[in-house]
C-alpha cells in the first residue's frame, strides 16, 4: 500500500445527554490511501457521522491522533489549517442544508474557487463552466438559484463544489441516500470517474451496504463507536466476521424473480 493520505489513531469522543454518557467514538483507527475509497457502514447511531465530523474537524475528539497529508491534522491552526482544509472536502445527505439558501449554482462554485484561489480571477468563469459540465449539468443552470433545481442536480452541484478545489480527500456522508435510484446510479458513476481522473480518495459513509460495496475498495463496519471489522470489499462481504455485518448483509433487499449471471473473474481486473 502507498503512503496513507489519512490515518486516524484511537479516536475517542463522548457526548453527554442529561445524565447519560454516549460513547460515539470508542477508539477508532483507520487509514485511507490516495485514490482509494474506504466505505464505512453501520446502523443509525453507530457513530459514523461523528467520525466524519471529527475527521473534518467540525468537532474535536477527546483523544486520539489524525495525520492528513503528512501533517498532524489536529495540531494545525490558522492559515495552515485553512490551506490544508481545501484538501479535505465533505458532501452531505441534504445539499439544500449545506448551501447558502440565497446562492446561485455558479455563485456556489465561484466562491469556492475564490476562497481557495484555485484559478486566477480571470479564469474563474471558465472554470465554473468546466465544473458544471464535468458533473453532467447544463450550463443553463449556472444562473439558477440553488432552490430552483432538483435534488439530484443539487447533489451534483455539491460534488462540483467539493472537487472544485482539487482536494485529496472527499468525505461523503449518506451523499446518495436521499436520491431516486435512477439518479443515484449516475452520481455513483460520476464519483468513480472523478476518482480515476484525479486520484482523489473517498470516505464513503452509508447505512446502505449494497451501495457502499459498489464504490468501495475497502469496507469498514462500525458498531457502537467501534470499527468491528475492516478489509477488501469483496472478502469482507463474502465472509463477515461480525454480527453487525451479517445483519447488514441479510437486510439488503433483493429483487426477487431476477437472476443475474455470475460475475466472471476477469471483470474486476478490467476496471484498472
Amino acid at each position, binding site marked *: *500500500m502507498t503512503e496513507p493520505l489519512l490515518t486516524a489513531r484511537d479516536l475517542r469522543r463522548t457526548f453527554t445527554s442529561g445524565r447519560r454518557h454516549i460513547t460515539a467514538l470508542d477508539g477508532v483507527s483507520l487509514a485511507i*490511501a*490516495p*485514490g*482509494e*475509497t474506504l466505505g464505512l457502514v453501520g*446502523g*443509525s*447511531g453507530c457513530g459514523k457521522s461523528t467520525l466524519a465530523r471529527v475527521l473534518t474537524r467540525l468537532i474535536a475528539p477527546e483523544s486520539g491522533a489524525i495525520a492528513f497529508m503528512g501533517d498532524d491534522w489536529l495540531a494545525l491552526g490558522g492559515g495552515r489549517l485553512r490551506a490544508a482544509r481545501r484538501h479535505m472536502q465533505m458532501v452531505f445527505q441534504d445539499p439544500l442544508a449545506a448551501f447558502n439558501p440565497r446562492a446561485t449554482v455558479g455563485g456556489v462554485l465561484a466562491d469556492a474557487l475564490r476562497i481557495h484561489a484555485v484559478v486566477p480571477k480571470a479564469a474563474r468563469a471558465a472554470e465554473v463552466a468546466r465544473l458544471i459540465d464535468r458533473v453532467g449539468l447544463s450550463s443553463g443552470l449556472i444562473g439558477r438559484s440553488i432552490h430552483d433545481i432538483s*435534488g439530484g442536480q443539487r447533489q451534483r452541484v455539491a460534488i462540483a463544489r467539493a472537487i472544485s478545489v482539487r482536494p485529496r480527500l472527499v468525505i461523503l456522508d449518506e451523499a446518495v441516500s436521499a436520491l*431516486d*435510484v*435512477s439518479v*443515484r*446510479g449516475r452520481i*455513483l*458513476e460520476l464519483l*468513480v470517474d472523478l*476518482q480515476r481522473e484525479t*486520484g482523489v480518495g473517498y470516505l464513503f459513509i452509508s*447505512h*446502505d*451496504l*449494497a*451501495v457502499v*460495496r*459498489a*464504490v*468501495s*475498495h475497502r469496507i469498514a463496519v462500525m458498531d457502537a463507536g467501534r470499527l468491528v471489522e475492516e478489509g*477488501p*470489499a*469483496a472478502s469482507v*462481504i463474502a465472509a463477515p466476521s461480525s454480527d453487525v455485518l451479517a*445483519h*447488514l*448483509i*441479510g*437486510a*439488503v*433487499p*433483493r*429483487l*426477487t*424473480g*431476477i437472476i*443475474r449471471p455470475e*460475475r466472471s473473474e476477469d*471483470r*474486476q*481486473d478490467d*476496471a*484498472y
Partner: protein
Amino acid sequence: MTTVLGIADLTVTYRRAAASALIGISLEVEAGEILAIIGESGSGKSTLARAIADLLPERTEVAGLLRWPGLEGGPRAGRDIGYVFQDPGSSLNPVLSIGEQVGEGARRHLGLSRRAADAEVLRLLTRVRLPEPERIARAFPHQLSGGQRQRVAIAAAIAAQPHLLIADEVTSSLDVVVQAAIVELLVELVRAENMTLIFVTHDLALASGIADRVAVMAEGRLVELGPVADVIAAPKAAETAALIAAHIDLTTPPLVGEAP
C-alpha cells in the same frame, strides 16, 4: 377474490398546481392482498395513497370514482383504514403518552372502557414486538428510537382493527436493518389479521420481497400493474425496466476493483 376497493379513472389536481398529480388511475385492490405502489419522487404514489384514505388537502380537485364494496357510506378513517406515515416523529403527538395515542383508536372506534383500552394497548405494543410494553406506554415519542416510534405508529394504526392498512414510505427514514424488521412485522401482522396492505415505496426490491402485486407509477400515471414476479421478470413499461436496471444489491457488479 373479493374486491376491497375499486378505483376508476381517478384524477387528482392539487390547488394551484399546473399539472395533475394523478391522471386516470384505475385499479382494484383485492381482499387480503399486499399491493405495492412504487415510483420515484413526484410519481404520484403518495397522492394515490392519500386519495384512497381521503387525506388530500382541502380544495384539491378530485375526479373519478372510489368504490368500496361492503362498506356502506364509505370507509371511516382510522376505523376501516389504518394509515402509517413516513415520519412517525411528526405523525405521533409529542405531548401525549404512547399509551394514550395507541389506546385512542380502541376507545373511540371499539368503544372500550379506559381500563380495557389500557390492557389493549399493552397487547398491541407486545403485538408490534416492543420490549417492556408497560414502560413504553408511559413514554413520550421523543424518548423512543425511530424504529420504535414506527412500531408505535403501526400499533396505533391497527388499534381499531381496520381491514385495510396503508403504509406510506414507512421505512424510508430508517436504516436497512430496522427497515427489514419493520417490513417483516407488517407482513406478519397483515397475514395473521387477514388485513389488506397497500405498501407505498420508492424501493422496488423491498416491494418485490413482500408484495403479491405491484403497481408502478410514473408522472402521475399507472404505467404497469401485475403480479410481482411477472413484473420483475418481464417488465412491460420502460419506467419499470429503468427501476430494475438501477437496482443495486450485493450481486451487482461493483464499479471499482479491489485496490487503487
